[in-house]
């Protein structure tokens, strides 16, 4: 067992993990942050996307020990109390989800897209950038709309 500590959603946390513990399992099972989902075992679905040191990663494809000392942000870290993050609000307003299983990963990926591509996103960019996130409900159309609207709202002009 190894001791690790990191900052998760702004708060320092630490825990004891096996070498093989995946970061997603540390978050879900030890920290009880169950917003981050596991949808596959092939690194393809993106339900587990979080940010590590400001970049999107698949937390099912990273060891918890590899995040020792890192800054981690999960879906739980976005809202400000009862006020949703603009990207969350956009998914709600534009029906960017049905069952919601893929949504945390979609939103964390969406924020990474905004970080790299800015607030004015065309549809093609969003579709290409969401290649690593799979949704089995929506057909993606409203997810793309939500990401575009959320990105705009983050820039201050919704």
């Amino acid at each position, binding site marked *: 067992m*190894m001791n690790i500590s990191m900052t998760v959603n702004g708060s320092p946390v630490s825990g004891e993990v*096996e*070498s*093989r513990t*995946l970061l997603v399992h540390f978050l879900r099972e030890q920290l009880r942050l169950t917003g981050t989902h596991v949808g596959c*075992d*092939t*690194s*393809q679905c*993106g339900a587990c*996307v979080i940010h590590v040191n400001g*970049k*999107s*990663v*698949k937390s099912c*494809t*990273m*060891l918890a*020990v*590899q995040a*020792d000392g890192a800054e981690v942000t999960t879906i739980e870290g976005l809202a400000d109390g009862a006020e949703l993050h603009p990207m969350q609000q956009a998914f709600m307003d534009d029906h960017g989800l049905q069952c919601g299983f893929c949504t945390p990963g979609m939103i964390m*990926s969406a924020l*990474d*897209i905004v970080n*790299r591509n800015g607030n004015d996103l065309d549809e093609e960019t969003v579709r290409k*950038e969401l*290649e*690593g*996130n799979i949704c089995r409900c929506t057909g993606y159309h409203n997810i793309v709309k939500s990401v575009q609207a959320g990105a705009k709202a983050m820039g201050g002009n919704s």
Partner: protein
Amino acid sequence: MYEFSYKNVDSVSAAVEAMQAADDGKFLAGGQTMLPTMKHRLASPSDIIDLGGIDELKGISVNAGTVTIGAMTTHGEVAASADVQNAIPALAKLAGNIGDPAVRNRGTIGGSIANNDPAADYPSAVIALGATVKTNQREIAGDDFFTGMFETALAEDEIIVSVSFPVAESAAYMKFENPASRYAIVGVFVAKTGGSVRVAVTGATPCAHRALRIEEALNGELNSAAVDAAEIPVEKMNSDIHASAEYRAHLVKVMAKRAVEACV
């Protein structure tokens, strides 16, 4: 995943020592292939030696007509590098089409070429651009690095430090990708330097290789119609659920033509 002993090191020499002390050790780069392989229990190393904390393996530099990329530089960093985009745009583009954004934020060039997946993108660039792979022990020519399916010239305790790519006059990479994994079903990298045109193919056969038949047909010219004259040996092509050998042989020519056209 079976349990293993995890070692985090901060220098290449410490990594080598840890490997020599290990029973059945593996170096961990970005982990985007290694960890899924271990999750599926297709690999169960006794020791994982994480190279993620070694700063000397990271970074990109361009000088005297050469782009040098540290082994632990991620695909995302290569794709976003203004230096790489200016010097060898085809290389930046190749890196930007590996996997998906989250995978590109972890996966590294060193990990990709050391693993030498038959369908990986980077090996074609290493071969076609005539790159040199620098390790902690020696320099290996790109032509000699990839030795077979998932096999390379690397020794067990040898670590890639960086890969140096000579800047080409023009270069382009075209891949026909698997829509789920984004791996190349067939990928062709074409590079023109001086009077010669080099062509490398990935995805089509068990190991990325130089396409000498296509090079001969091109004869130093970026003329896509000339590709038609090349005979692609169907019996050497991979055949699997994604594509038959005949289809891959066909794709080699189609992708080669597109890459030649994109060079012009």
